[in-house]
């Protein structure tokens, strides 16, 4: 097995009395796509959000290329550049046009001059097929296009790992495909990805591994065919039969 790009080790997270994550251990090797499923409230988003410290872990370690991002003296803003995040609700900046949505962090975090930042933004937008929408505002493009801009915004920083939290759940069905296509390209280009989603079809073709979470722990993990085709655990079976209707 290749060296893990992302490693979650003994991750616990509680909100006050409420224990949400109860000891997660997960290694995502470089270039792999790990697909996360599980019932609502099982802690999937919380796990992802710990991976770039939008939530502080109660205990445990998150390692990117072997460096604990929760360690003392870690520059959290520099760490966050290595971890791109895509949200269910896109969260584009509505007051900025598409190009500026992508270039803001390039200019303010990487301190690139405007021309260079714009150039890199356009390259990132090109990757998601939206270079010709650079001057539009988020409200002027479709949800699927907005989500692709959000992906470009994260990619422009050249992250090591991309986290996706239900990236297509807020989209009309006809717009889902374009976002999945971008994610497929990303996987093909060698990006390390941790994806929470309900798109089982996508998981079957693109995921190296599927993990099923429930109650803040990983209940079952394996190859997509194994987890979807012959789930071993009762809770996995119940979940899968529920989502398949």
């Amino acid at each position, binding site marked *: 097995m290749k060296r893990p790009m992302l490693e979650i080790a003994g991750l616990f997270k509680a909100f006050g009395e409420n224990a949400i994550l109860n000891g997660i251990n997960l290694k995502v090797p470089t270039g792999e796509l790990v697909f996360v499923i599980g019932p609502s409230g099982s802690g999937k988003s919380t796990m992802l959000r710990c991976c*770039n410290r*939008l939530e502080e872990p109660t205990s445990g370690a998150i390692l990117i290329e072997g460096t604990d991002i929760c360690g003392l003296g870690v520059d959290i*803003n*520099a760490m*966050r*550049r290595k*971890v*791109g*995040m895509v*949200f269910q*609700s896109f*969260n*584009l*900046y*509505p*007051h900025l046009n598409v190009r500026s949505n992508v270039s*803001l*962090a390039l200019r*303010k*975090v990487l301190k690139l001059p405007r021309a260079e930042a714009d150039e890199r933004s356009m390259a990132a937008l090109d990757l998601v097929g939206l270079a010709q929408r650079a001057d539009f505002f988020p409200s002027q493009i479709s949800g699927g296009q907005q989500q692709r801009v*959000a992906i470009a*915004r*994260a990619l422009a*920083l050249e992250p090591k790992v991309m986290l996706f939290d239900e990236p297509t759940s807020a989209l009309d069905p006809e717009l889902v495909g374009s976002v999945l296509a971008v994610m497929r390209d990303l996987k093909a280009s060698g990006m390390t990805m941790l994806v929470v989603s309900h798109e089982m079809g996508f998981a079957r073709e693109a995921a190296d591994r599927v993990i099923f979470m429930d109650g803040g722990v990983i209940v079952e993990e394996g190859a997509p065919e194994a987890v979807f085709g012959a789930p071993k655990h009762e809770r996995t079976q119940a979940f899968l039969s529920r989502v398949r209707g």
Partner: protein
Amino acid sequence: MNQILDQFLNFQVMGAAFPTLMAGLLTTAEICVVVILLGLAGGLGVALGSLHSSRWVRWPSIVLVDFFRAIPPLVLLIFVYSGLPFAGIRLSPFAAVVIAFLLNNSAYYGEVYRAGILSIGKGQFEAARSTGLTRAQTMLYVVLPQAVRNVLPDLLSNTVEVVKLTSLASVVSLGELLYAADMARSVTYNASPVVMAAAVYLVILWPLVRLVSRFERRLSL
């Protein structure tokens, strides 16, 4: 009827009082510029303070804002101008007016900004932070531009209040518009200068009030 016109709309008296009133208007404008600009900055300061993650910053900011919103501005002005000398702090009328109104006005602007910042969804902060922007950068480039846009009518409406507030400065004999008009009234034994002052306030503030209504309508669409 003629007597009434002569008392309230005496153009001869108005003409004579005009230079005095314009000098007063200039002072009013000076107070407004200082109080509005510093108030916008101070308000932003207390708004950020009242939303700070540390309670040692948050609580004092909230207490400050509450205090200066609760205390009547006239009381504050008289305290600053006539009360502080008992502590050996003697201020010019202009300085007293600016300080008193600035405290009052920063508190009001602060509440407006605060509401604006709270109107921005958590997702905006998270998206910005996830790209490595610092807290301060997130505020400056992502949250504030949207927040200010959302509360523009309230900021403007508060600004109208500031202009009205300046008329209180007459009680500390600061020669602003109302004070100048009242002086002219007492010299001429005629109310026309006060009517003229009222007209000047109206001419300045009416367009602003209309603008507030327009903004409010547009934002509510």
